[in-house]
């Protein structure tokens, strides 16, 4: 009995590990103003399903991604593309930045271009000497993107993988083709739901 309680305790602690890396991204109010929105929320059973399917039937260029998502606990993406400037405020960006300045988070790289009004930052969350989370914040005049990965992640590998996964070359950081794919994916998902 004691052994079981101990095991349950260990399992509970394990599930909590890295959970501090999960950001509370409150940017949903921007969806109404955005021209295109990417909203990815994968965790738990859904993430496991996606990971298994990726491992079972990797498409061209996805083989390396299988290893990359091993041990991943969650992936959350909010990306908003606007038709005109000024759709989001500095407060929206600051709200995310404030969380990224909290305990455990370290700024990996942060670059700002005042002239273009662009900022991009990569942050990592350390726990027990291990990297247990990653966040990317990119603010451009017409685009605001926040990526939050919970669990260990090789940032270098992730960067190298980009452009290979969706079978297209480097996007030049513009998300339009990806957003188009996302829209196609949404249509596909809705079709599945209707079935």
């Amino acid at each position, binding site marked *: 009995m004691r052994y079981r309680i101990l095991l349950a305790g260990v399992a509970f602690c394990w599930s909590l590990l890295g959970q501090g890396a999960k950001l509370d991204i409150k940017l949903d109010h921007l969806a109404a103003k955005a021209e295109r929105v990417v909203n990815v929320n994968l965790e738990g059973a859904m993430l496991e399903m*996606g990971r298994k399917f990726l491992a079972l039937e990797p498409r061209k260029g996805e083989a390396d991604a299988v290893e990359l998502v091993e041990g991943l606990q969650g992936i959350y993406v909010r990306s908003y593309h606007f038709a005109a400037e000024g759709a989001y405020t500095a407060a929206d960006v600051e709200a995310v930045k404030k969380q990224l300045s909290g305990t455990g988070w370290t700024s990996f790289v942060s*670059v700002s271009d005042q002239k273009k009004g662009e900022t*991009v930052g990569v942050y990592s969350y350390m726990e027990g000497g291990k990297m247990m989370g990653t966040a990317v914040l990119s603010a451009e005049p017409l685009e605001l993107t926040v*990526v939050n990965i919970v669990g260990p992640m090789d940032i270098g590998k992730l960067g190298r993988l980009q452009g290979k*996964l*969706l079978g297209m070359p480097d996007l030049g*950081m513009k998300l339009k083709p990806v957003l188009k*794919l996302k829209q196609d994916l949404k249509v*596909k998902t809705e079709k*599945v739901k209707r079935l």
Partner: protein
Amino acid sequence: MERLEGELERMLERRNPPGEFTERLMSRVRGERRRVLPAWRWAAAGALAASLLVGVYVERRQARLERERAGAVRDELVLGLEIAGAKINKARRAVLNLGTEDSL
């Protein structure tokens, strides 16, 4: 003795069956056959086969839907990684190009 013989002879003498004997016999045989596999058994067998077919169809449909759902989740996961990779590369490029005109 003679009487007994005569009686036996009379009893065993060859007689033709009545006119409808064959028809009656054949209809009885048909009846027997029907009793061997009655209609309800045919119906039961049909129902069993139909339910098996329906079961296989439902199972396959469920598997297909599950597969499509898993495929959509996989696409979403890949999309998340792709966006994350793109933004990380943007930061990397910006660092590499620091000091030049086109840093970001």
